[in-house]
């Protein structure tokens, strides 16, 4: 089942990416955010550069070893060793990159990991090996006529943003947002004793966004929060930015400011 913006989103806007809703044995549905063409393209471009660099690196090293001198040129009469040692492993790196890494990294490649996406089946599980193989074989069609034209169009027009290889393999790409930092500054022991849930969330939010906020804004917010929990206004006023941050982190851990 696909729902725009997810069924649990407060305001699912019309432009929001859809969520894949999966039944679970616990009775609580899984809501998996489907990655759109943007995230896919981003991951692909990173992967393309990585495999191009790997291919070139292999070619350069192997060609230098083969030639035995400072030259990358193809021999006038190339032997089987040239193909077997220089070209074949390079081609294998380039063409088997996706399938091998997706199997080893359980639905991810370095590019997908950097883009924060991973492959799953339509029931939210990790795909099996045949699914990885089939989605990569169908790159032959998806890459037509140039620059993954067919694949790009199908990801734009299909509901789940899938290319033909994904349709064949029954896979889709979801955002992998298992980010430890989301609750980095929330400590279960501090909540209830000193902080309520809303304040704990607020402190966590402020600490997470600390570097992105203007220094005056974050200092003012930090002082207001610390004062509510017994911080002395004059001491807080004298405190520097880094000090305020440390005090706030202590508060989140359950210490007194």
């Amino acid at each position: 089942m696909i729902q725009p913006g997810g069924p649990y989103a407060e305001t699912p806007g019309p432009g929001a990416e859809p969520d894949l809703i999966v039944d679970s044995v616990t009775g609580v549905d899984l809501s998996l955010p489907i990655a759109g063409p943007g995230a896919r393209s981003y991951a692909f471009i990173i992967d393309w550069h990585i495999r191009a660099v790997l291919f070139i690196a292999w070619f350069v090293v192997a060609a230098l070893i083969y030639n035995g001198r400072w030259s990358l040129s193809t021999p006038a009469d190339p032997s089987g060793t040239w193909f077997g040692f220089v070209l074949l492993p390079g081609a294998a790196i380039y063409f088997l990159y996706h399938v091998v890494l997706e199997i080893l990294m359980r639905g991810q490649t370095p590019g997908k990991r950097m883009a924060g996406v991973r492959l799953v089946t339509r029931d939210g599980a990790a795909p099996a090996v045949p699914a990885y193989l089939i989605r990569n074989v169908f790159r032959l069609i998806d890459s037509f006529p140039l620059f993954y034209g067919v694949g790009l169009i199908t990801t734009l027009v299909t509901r789940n943003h899938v290319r033909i290889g994904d349709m064949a393999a029954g896979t889709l790409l979801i955002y992998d947002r298992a980010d430890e930092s989301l609750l980095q500054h929330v400590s279960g022991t501090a909540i209830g004793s000193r902080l309520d849930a809303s304040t704990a969330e607020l402190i966590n939010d402020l600490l997470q966004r600390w570097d992105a906020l203007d220094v005056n804004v974050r200092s003012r917010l930090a002082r207001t929060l610390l004062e509510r929990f017994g911080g002395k206004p004059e001491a807080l006023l004298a405190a520097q930015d880094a000090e305020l941050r440390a005090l706030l982190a202590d508060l989140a851990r359950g210490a007194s400011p």
Partner: protein
Amino acid sequence: MTEALRERALRTSLLQRADAWKSAADRARRLMYGRTENVADATRLVDDYRLLAHDLARARRLMPDSRARSFLEAAYAQAHGTLHKPVAHPGYALWSLFRDQVPDAMRWLRPHLLWVTLLFVVAVLVGGWLVHTYPELIGLFASPELITTVERGELWTEGLLNVVPSSVLSLQILTNNVVVSLFAYCAGFLFGLGTFYIVGLNGLMLGAIFAFTAQHGLDGGLFRFIVAHGCVELSVMVISGAAGAAVGEALIRPTTHGRAQSFQIAALRTSKVIIACVVLLIGCGFIEGYISPNPDFPLWTRLIVGFGYWLFMVALLRGWLFGRSRSTVAIEA
């Protein structure tokens, strides 16, 4: 107690479990990428899954726009993925693939195999008839260099090893064959039409070139060149085409499932046959690089190699090489 106070207390009690969520997410991630022999570790994951589901349901109601809910959504998805990840037994999976899954898929492909074989044979005959009747049509099927060579009374395969070493030839041929075979399969996505064109065109070319060489008395030499690798190579081409046709048919006439799901089932089922085809093409590349162009091999040797490799192909595709017999009950992998 007021409603607001109650909700606040519930939110606070929920967030007090943040440390448990973090360790649950840690465990799920660790077990997704690694293995554990520890039963307690695996059991804890099941408990974590229930805990995360329970708390997520509460977080969706009590704090829908919070970071805690985002964390729980992600951790729950991670735990679900880890619990439902396929068991990895590469040795068994490979054995099961060749013993049961490939033969089962081949049995399922029988009608497609019959029709694609018929298409290929008809295309060969039509190609042969066309060039036999209208010799100038060879220009549609062969390159000018090939035509000139044959008209000189030579086969383009003669002296091939003087130009390219066997190992290079093997690799080039292997790559080309695998790409053609995969294309014949993938092109089935175009409702089977792509497969139809690729198989038909290859058949036409084969028939046309045989007819053309026959006109110059070179057909015996061409047969001599082809027979060692061609038996399996052409069979694999037809099998790939049949797999592509099955995928195309799933789109044209979906089964009880929807069109997309029918396509997916057909693609996953036939992919096992394609793996076997790629394995067979590696052998073909080797034969075509080392045996076919080498004039030292007499015809009888080539016939034995060609027919022997074809029997090997039958044994592989029927699972006999991996201990399957007629009485074997298929194992669902």
